[in-house]
């Protein structure tokens, strides 16, 4: 927990999709659609972000036998995740004072 995951451009895409609606929970299929990422790329990123505490996931409420289908797993961004994403954005944005004197 708390370790910073490797931030690839695809990781940023996933985080961007999660940040678009920080309060809502999305399934892997929904994130894949929003972020336009293939399943092979998406799940390793989701797992990594979850293991570092930036994302949290839970099962859909309900019994699969009653639902008649497998349960969905929903992901949401954590408070820590939001804080870290804001930090990443700050790190990537050129600071005003650096070029103010040029």
């Amino acid at each position, binding site marked *: 927990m708390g370790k910073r995951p490797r931030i690839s451009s695809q990781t940023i895409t996933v985080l961007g999709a999660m940040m678009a609606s920080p309060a809502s929970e999305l*399934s*892997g*299929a*929904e994130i*894949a659609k929003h972020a336009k990422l*293939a*399943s*092979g*790329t*998406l*799940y*390793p990123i989701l*797992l990594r972000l979850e293991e570092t505490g930036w994302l949290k996931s839970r099962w*859909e409420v309900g019994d*699969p036998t009653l639902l008649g*289908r*497998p*349960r*969905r*797993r929903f992901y949401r961004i954590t408070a820590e995740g939001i804080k870290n994403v804001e930090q990443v954005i700050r790190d990537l944005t050129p600071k005003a004072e650096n070029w103010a004197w040029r």
Partner: protein
Amino acid sequence: MAVIWIVAVAILGVLGAAISRQITDEFKAWTPWIILGIIDRAVRMLPEDKRERFAEEWHSHVNEIPGDVGKVIVAAGFLVASSRMARIPTAAGKRMVDTTLSAAAVALFLPLSIVTAIFIKLDSPGPIFFRQERIGRNGKRFQIMKFRTMSIVEDHAKVFRVTRVGRVLRRLRLDELPQLLNVLAGDMSLVGPHPRSPNDRSPSVLHQSSLKPGIVLDAEPVAPVTSKDQEERYKKELAYLRNHSLFLDLKIVARGVWRILTDRVDAL
């Protein structure tokens, strides 16, 4: 003579329609079974404590995808996902993808292959399969398998002639289907550089890598005739070698399957 041609064209038309119907029907019928198998293989690569979760999660993911082709492509992606999550080296992951997808494809195309074999036998005398020596990984020689598309007309000299069924098979690339057996046997991959015949001295990346030759590399391969074509092919192989990943492989397979399911059938 004209009657023979009319009959031949009619047979080809019926054969073509049968083949395209066969492919789509089989695909529909087998899709749930194939997806189950692929997800099962993918999940088994994961550490034990993660298997149950991703089995259910991935089944529900596939449920949300519309269309059978889309479902299979997404499921194949899970093979890449789990080999990355389990940090399995690319070569081992590639073998896993090769065996899973080619076994699924053999099952899927089995009825079509039987129909094809019957047509080959009816059309001209000779064996169903055509074997040829090719050079594989690390210079190892192996027998490539194809459906026979030519017959030998023995007059004074041996003359090879493309048969009527052969022409259809070649147009649909169905003559390449038995190469799935080469993949299962471990001599070939689904995706990889073209396996050269021993007398083809054109440059090949097979000499400078540990890659296996593959069925496809490019969705629209040009049969190299001139040395310029050969150079073009070599350039594509080098580009593949540089960017080689399981994900790229799946994209190439998906593109190839898409081509076959869309324009290849219409091309008849």
